[in-house]
């Protein structure tokens, strides 16, 4: 039996792809990514071949993770919304529950309000699919070492 694996079935990836392609049309976004909470790229829309989606996924997940930590450090439960404004492209990131991140890269022709609205709708559609992927995860939280266990292990 696997321990804590995520499994992505072809039909689920098809669903995710359909959802983000729809979002791409709605928002005229340049590229859309779905990244899981560990930085793993799950799906992305077709884009400029010079943009490496795996690297982009890793960096956005790292960025999102750092920002969420920052939020906790200044007493916010979480920032579900992260927005970076550049001079040409903007990045909008939104958490998909606790399972992943929806990343939308868009240029200044699309109003941010539109991105925000459609992103929120999209994350709701994506959440059940990503949750299904994660189900195996629940099994692993058992039997973690106690403080005493660790002290015994590293009994220097």
């Amino acid at each position, binding site marked *: *039996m*696997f*321990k*804590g*694996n*995520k*499994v*992505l*079935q*072809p039909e*689920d*990836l*098809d669903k995710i792809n359909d959802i983000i392609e729809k979002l791409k049309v709605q928002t005229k976004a340049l590229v859309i990514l779905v990244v*899981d*909470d*560990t*930085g*793993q790229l*799950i799906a992305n829309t077709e884009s400029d071949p010079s943009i*490496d989606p*795996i*690297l982009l996924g*890793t*960096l956005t997940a*790292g960025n999102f*993770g*750092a920002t969420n*930590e920052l939020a906790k*450090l200044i007493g916010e439960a979480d920032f579900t919304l992260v927005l970076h404004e550049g001079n040409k492209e903007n990045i909008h990131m939104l958490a998909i529950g606790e399972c992943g991140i929806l990343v939308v890269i868009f240029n200044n022709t699309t109003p941010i309000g539109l991105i925000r609205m459609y992103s929120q709708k999209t994350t709701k559609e994506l959440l059940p699919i990503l949750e299904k992927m994660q189900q195996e*995860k629940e099994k*692993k*939280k058992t*039997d*973690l*070492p106690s403080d005493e*266990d*660790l002290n015994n*292990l*590293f009994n*220097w």
Partner: protein
Amino acid sequence: MTMINYAKKEIICKVVYYGPGLCGKTTNLKFIYDNIMGQYKGKMIALATESERTLFFDFLPLDFGKIKNFNAKFQLYTVPGQAYYTNSRKLILKGADGVVFVADSQTDRFEENKESLKDLAVNLREQGLDIRKIPLVLQWNKRDLPNIVPIQTLEETLNFRKVPTFEAVAAKGIGVFETLKTIVKMVFVSLGGQG
């Protein structure tokens, strides 16, 4: 967390190189990047300061090609070693399938190795992972330097699980691929449910 993607026929695993500051984690990744055959590697990212110290993580995706119809992909990460980056280390460990602990063999770094190993145990636990069970390899790095701790002492102190260990000089590539190969195998074995 291993992702098994039936749609793309991929299996993706995450391995984190952990250890005290300046122990050689990034050096390991750079050597792998520079010396592994082109078809197996993607682009490497190093998020480092001007003095080339890792400030968040390094990332190197490896693609071992098809193994029984599945594309076996490994993503190698390093963490920043200095104490005050503890939150970053915690973040990077999320979903790790295996850990390489790189110890600095120098005598005056001995205590830092111990601290870092304990830090690893605590941070793994925060991510729901168990240092007693996760695939783990220890690397005794910088064996070419003077004033180093004897292997036996390192084994007795740090190798609490009797996991595979390798002597290394990462800057010259000694022990780097042996370490990688072993952690990759251990992760695969653990996926089979026997680890």
